[in-house]
């Protein structure tokens, strides 16, 4: 665990830094392989940048909408750099809207774009694992397994390492190889990735002690992962069916 890197009087938040590095590597990988999906790298870069910016602005706007009173009293806090003043769900929604609007403006085709973004998301999954490892977030249940790690007062499942390993396997499996990519109907590559990643998420979340849960103990993230896996699988199936019909017809 290494949450802060102190450089003189500057305290660099290592988890955030690792996420930024992941964003950069993921975006570079997506840009490099974009031509395999029939895309130019530039619009892809603009799309991700627009999603990031709209996500950050949206996250702050949603937070302010949820708790308006302190911001009305101190309007300057709207510009605060505190990440705690961001609403993650609102940010995600705003990032999606920003990406959709930008994609539309740039005339990008939806399915090839989603396919081309797979390396970006795959690298980001691994970076999130490293970020959690550095912050100590997403820690596992206590265990007496020989590979347990000592963290937060107990020997625990190294859940962050599980996340990194699963992410690495998924990245290896979904590295855009020309032969594989060209054999799939557009969109299939992305929905396969969503399905496999969601199942991995669903499985691994069970080892986490700090994941949120409903009052009956059912884990929130597992429900979301299951729904994503079902949606990804349905979309994958429908795309293949449509493509087969088109080929036969």
């Amino acid at each position, binding site marked *: 665990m290494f949450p802060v890197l102190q450089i003189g009087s500057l305290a660099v938040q290592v988890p955030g830094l690792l996420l930024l590095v992941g964003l950069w590597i993921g975006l570079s990988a997506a840009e490099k392989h974009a031509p395999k999906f029939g895309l130019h790298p530039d619009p892809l870069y603009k799309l991700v940048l627009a999603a990031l910016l709209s996500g950050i602005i949206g996250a702050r706007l949603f937070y302010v909408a949820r708790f308006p009173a*302190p911001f009305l009293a101190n309007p300057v806090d709207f510009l605060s750099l505190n990440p705690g003043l961001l609403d993650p769900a609102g940010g995600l929604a705003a990032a999606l809207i920003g990406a959709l609007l930008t994609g539309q403006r740039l005339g990008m085709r939806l399915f090839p774009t989603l396919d081309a973004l797979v390396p970006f998301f795959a690298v980001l999954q691994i970076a999130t694992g490293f970020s959690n490892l550095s912050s100590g977030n997403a820690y596992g249940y206590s265990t007496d397994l020989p590979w347990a790690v000592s963290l937060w007062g107990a020997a625990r499942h190294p859940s962050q390492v599980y996340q990194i390993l699963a992410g690495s396997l998924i990245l290896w499996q979904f590295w855009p190889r020309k032969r594989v990519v060209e054999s799939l109907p557009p969109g299939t590559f992305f929905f396969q990735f969503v399905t496999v990643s969601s199942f991995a998420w669903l499985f691994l979340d069970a080892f986490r002690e700090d994941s949120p849960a409903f009052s009956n*103990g059912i884990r929130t993230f597992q429900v979301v992962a299951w729904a994503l896996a079902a949606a990804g699988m349905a979309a994958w199936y429908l795309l293949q069916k449509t493509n087969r019909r088109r080929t036969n017809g």
Partner: protein
Amino acid sequence: MWHFPLGLILLAFGLVWIGASRKPPGHVGSGGISAPRAGFLAPDFALEDESGGLVQLSDLRGQAVLVNIWASWCAPCRAEMPAMQRVYETMQGSGFTILAVNATHQDSREAALAFAARHGLTFPILFDSDGSVARLYENRALPSSYFIDPDGRIREVVIGGPMAEALLITRVEQLLPGQD
């Protein structure tokens, strides 16, 4: 096509896994383990305040507490203190207090007291002369803030600063009983 039935089997297995791996009823955070992070009981400590009296964190159970580790030479620490004072003045009556733990092992008691007097800080200033609290809280950067609920459990850790007043207000409101 074999993918479809396999997919359905996997989804069914997913549902079984969700049911099998659900958290036990009444599961709260990490039980009785204390550690300096969200979800755990706040590590207990007792430190001297400016009048020489001993302040023990566990004596403040039932109140929302902000433990802030700071030093007078640290610019972000200095920048967030006025906002902390305003929030303290507003919310003190609702069962909220601040323990400003001065990292005296890398500062001085005189400098800390002079800073507190200059800014009219009225919340308790505690002196961590031997760095024991900094070690207990695995403190790696100044300022570090720990929002602790009335049950003594850390709800959020903020490393670095300065914290905006809006952040302080929203977090403290979430800590206070009946406002979660």
